[in-house]
């Protein structure tokens, strides 16, 4: 059997609680992060992603202690992102028990951050998160600051640059698809997975079991991430895995 495709629940954390919005706004409370993480691990999640979607210093401390509790209770890998802008930020999170760190806006502002982190901690624990927004001409550009600001930079160019600088994995979110539950951005994922030789996590748009099959059958994505559908239990991780297994897509059951 080959390497399996990963299903990754994403936990957006604000003020110590999991929240979920649509297209990065209208946040709703989804409960306790540690309890949710433990539930997902028990259900067969392959990995978890925690995003700190606030970044004041006070909230940062809460987030760090939360990450420690997660590491104590959950025995599957997890990535942490949100507001990481220095080696010290990354070090604190890795020391608290995170397995990988994900960088986004700060890396766009200072691309050398990616190489610094890769050199110090190894490429395998540096995830580049890119928020992609489709333009009127069909091209995808990189957005920063939680999807609010268009940088005008081409997504493909940025991802290629980040991989050259040592990013070991790409978390690619389509802002257009996020929260819409109409499927992943397949054409974007096809383009990106054809261009880079590191694993790519597809994010934004999962709404049905078939959407997960589509992203693995039609693109080179290595993992698929979802939030709202899992938090609400409109679709569960075991359902996704069983469905993919029946479609002969390699998954860990």
């Amino acid at each position: 059997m080959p390497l399996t495709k990963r299903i990754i629940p994403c936990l957006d954390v604000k003020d110590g609680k999991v929240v979920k919005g649509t297209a990065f706004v209208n946040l709703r409370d989804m409960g306790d992060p540690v309890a949710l993480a433990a539930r997902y691990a028990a259900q067969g999640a392959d990995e978890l992603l925690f995003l700190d979607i606030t970044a004041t210093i006070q909230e940062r401390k809460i987030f760090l202690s939360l990450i420690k509790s997660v590491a104590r209770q959950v025995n599957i890998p997890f990535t942490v992102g949100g507001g990481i802008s220095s080696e010290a930020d990354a070090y604190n999170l890795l020391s608290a028990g995170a397995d990988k760190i994900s960088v986004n806006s700060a890396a766009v502002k200072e691309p050398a951050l990616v190489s610094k982190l890769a050199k110090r901690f190894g490429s395998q624990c540096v995830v580049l998160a890119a928020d992609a927004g489709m333009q009127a001409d069909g091209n995808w550009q990189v957005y920063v600051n939680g999807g609010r600001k268009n940088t005008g930079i081409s997504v493909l160019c940025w991802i290629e640059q980040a991989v050259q600088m040592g990013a070991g994995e790409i978390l690619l979110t389509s802002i257009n698809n996020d929260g819409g539950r109409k499927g992943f951005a397949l054409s974007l994922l096809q383009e990106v997975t054809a261009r880079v030789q590191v694993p790519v996590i597809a994010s934004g748009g999962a709404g049905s079991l078939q959407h997960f099959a589509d992203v693995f059958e039609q693109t080179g994505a290595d993992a698929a991430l979802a939030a709202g559908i899992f938090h609400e239990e409109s679709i569960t991780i075991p359902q996704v895995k069983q469905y993919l297994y029946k479609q002969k897509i390699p998954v860990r059951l």
Partner: protein
Amino acid sequence: MKLVIVDYSAGNTCSVIFALNRLGIAPVISADAAEIRAADKVILPGVGAAGSAMLSLQQNGLDNVLRSLQQPMLGICLGMQLLCTASDEDDASCLDILGGQVQKLDAPKIPHIGWNDVYDLRGDLFKGLPENSYLYFVHSYGVPVSRATIATAAYGQSFSAAVQKDNFYGVQFHPEKSGDNGLLILKNFLNL
């Protein structure tokens, strides 16, 4: 039981600590030669690169301490690779306990990240674990299959998922992150 995790600033040891805590063990984190020698079991963790990891071990005089251990020692991920003679990563000379050369994985996508099955399981470390069980891997380099291989995995090519020579054990996957399967392997190590 006194279990020492070798402290050589190779990154993240807390996941290993938490996993051992779940098994009722409170490990000691130490870079002290006497303390490591006196342990019942030793774990050599490892996240990072071979060159800087070896340098750190040498600076603390721990390379010779590790080579001379008689009790069961488990190297995890980079900690397993360091048991070899040398690594292509940073052209590093390693501990040379096991022989062999650590090589960059030959696969379409590097790093190898995720859950892969393991097969041809041998010995007490894998007692109770079915063939083709899934374990969590994160690495770019691997140890080729050899006489020391006690578990194999395939990604692009086949490589050693685990090795053993005498009292020295190494696992390429992360047992501390591999759910219940990983916990079983750690438990087996504690029972050696």
